[in-house]
């Protein structure tokens, strides 16, 4: 497949506006400005594009909701708070293709009649901040941003808002709170951000990769785009693959590429020729899969059929030397640290689960600990404002379900099955 998102990524000047324009960049924007805003939204709907941040919500539908709200000003926020462990797919876009994102944002803003935009960038990406700010400056100089873009009377102002190390700010309502200068604690929905978002105004929050797909959709048309990969959730997709594989990295492949193909063909198979033990397919919050499930196509429709989710498309591969209890413990330690504290089940439950996992891992597990973990997890799932609590519960429940024997062994023998 021809690279769309990672096109020209090996060009050392790929982040510069000259290189971007030379490879056809900003032509989608010029084409979009010849279209009515409504027609752009229709084109995005026709493309079948679904949000790449994890939830997979249809982008065109989200835009439609926001554009129907009569309140102004409207805001367009780019979610570049890529914090899901295992996920690093947006990083090459931010560091090497900033103008693709900016062009996508300008087209989106024009379609939504949003005059102000922010890129909410995680604090852990200081280099991306430098690159994005330089790219935004270039775009202003070329007349792609400002009060009268390309003399067409379109206004859009864009800046970078740097986060400060809070995973929860990747959740869209927490992200909005954070942009408003508050603690990043999620809001209850409804009302949804498309109606009551940043500063109470209609707001669209889209992921970096989602927005980076927009210029291509305008360029080739929604119909042609909808033929790429799985027609139920089409398009090119960035997969980040890490841990025990020969060639970890970011791969751009059609949506629906089988997990097995990504691991064994693109990422070169299991490191050192060892045995595959487990795969987390969509970032740490998504349920773990055993090797018998890896024929599954990687998309929003098929992964739920084998008990997991596409999430951010972050594949973490574990071989037979890795202790599943330890991975589970470290994942829950993360959720405990990142729980914002607003909902009691998540705030307290993640700490309890971490503590139980810690004693099992350390050789102090007790009989009944597995049931206790399941009980705590079930007391979190579905009882919190945002999906962080569900993610933590998912991890514990899926690890126990898939690796019960390993947990049992740890408790009975006070050591790991891998030792």
């Amino acid at each position: 497949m021809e690279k769309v998102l990672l096109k020209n990524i090996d060009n050392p000047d790929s982040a510069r506006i000259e290189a971007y324009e030379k490879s056809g960049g900003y032509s989608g924007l010029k084409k979009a400005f010849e279209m009515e805003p409504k027609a752009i939204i229709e084109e995005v709907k026709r493309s079948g594009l679904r949000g790449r941040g994890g939830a997979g919500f249809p982008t065109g539908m989200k835009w439609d909701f926001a554009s129907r709200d009569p309140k102004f000003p409207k805001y367009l926020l780019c979610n570049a708070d890529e914090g899901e462990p295992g996920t690093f797919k947006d990083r090459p876009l931010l560091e090497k293709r900033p103008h693709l994102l900016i062009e996508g944002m300008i087209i989106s803003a024009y379609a939504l009649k949003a005059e102000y935009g922010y890129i909410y960038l995680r604090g852990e990406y200081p280099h991306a901040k430098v690159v994005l700010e330089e790219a935004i400056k270039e775009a202003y100089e070329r007349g792609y941003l400002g009060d009268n873009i390309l003399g067409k009377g379109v206004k859009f102002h864009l800046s970078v808002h740097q986060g400060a190390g809070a995973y929860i700010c990747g959740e869209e309502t927490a992200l909005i709170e954070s942009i408003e200068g508050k603690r990043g604690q999620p809001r209850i929905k409804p009302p949804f951000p498309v109606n009551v978002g940043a500063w109470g105004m209609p707001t669209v929050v889209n992921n970096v990769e989602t927005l980076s797909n927009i210029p291509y959709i305008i360029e080739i048309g929604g119909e042609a785009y909808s033929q790429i990969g799985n027609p139920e959730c089409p398009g090119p997709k960035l997969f980040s693959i890490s841990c025990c594989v020969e060639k970890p990295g970011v791969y751009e492949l059609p949506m629906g590429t089988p997990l097995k193909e990504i691991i064994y063909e693109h990422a070169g198979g299991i490191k050192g020729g060892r045995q595959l033990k487990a795969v987390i397919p969509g970032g740490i919050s998504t349920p773990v899969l055993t090797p018998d499930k890896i024929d599954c196509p990687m998309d929003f429709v098929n992964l739920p059929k084998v008990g997991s989710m596409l999430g951010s498309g972050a594949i973490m591969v574990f071989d037979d030397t890795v202790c599943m209890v330890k991975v589970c413990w470290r994942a829950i330690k993360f959720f405990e640290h990142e729980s914002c504290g607003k909902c009691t089940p998540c705030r307290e439950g993640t700490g309890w689960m971490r503590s139980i996992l810690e004693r099992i891992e350390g050789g102090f597990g007790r009989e009944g600990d597995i049931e206790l973990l399941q009980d705590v997890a079930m007391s979190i799932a579905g009882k919190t404002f945002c999906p962080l609590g569900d993610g933590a519960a998912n991890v514990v429940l899926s690890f126990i379900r898939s690796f019960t024997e390993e947990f049992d062994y740890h408790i009975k023998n006070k050591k790991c099955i891998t030792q």
Partner: protein
Amino acid sequence: MEFLKEIEEILNRYPDRQGALLPSLYVAQKEYGWLSQESYEAVAQALNLPPATVKGVATFYAMYKHKPMGRHLIQLCTNVACMVMGAERLVDLLKNKYGLEPGGTTEDGRFSLVIMECIGACDKAPAMLVDTDFHADLNEKRIIEILESYK
């Protein structure tokens, strides 16, 4: 004063004063070295917010410097991918070689260490930031070589 000028520039990008709070805290941290009570009050005054609001927001976020730190800040990831690829050995190494504990600072004030929750470099794990420089594919030998270049 440079501090106020920078905050004024930030304010241009937001529809109200509180919007400028997160970026202003970064400016204050640069000015004061860390987020002291004095810095909260300066930001509060510049943004016309109660100091308690400023502190309440600042302490929610892990990446601000909530206490005085060494000349160089090591932010080492130990999340799942980095852990699987050996980050725990690096934490032990920093303890043994520099007497540096997670959350602590070396006696000579050269390094502070903060343990991170995924810095988005899982393909090059283990990874760390030293100040704003990114270093990846770390091992025991490489991390010491890198750190020795920060004086």
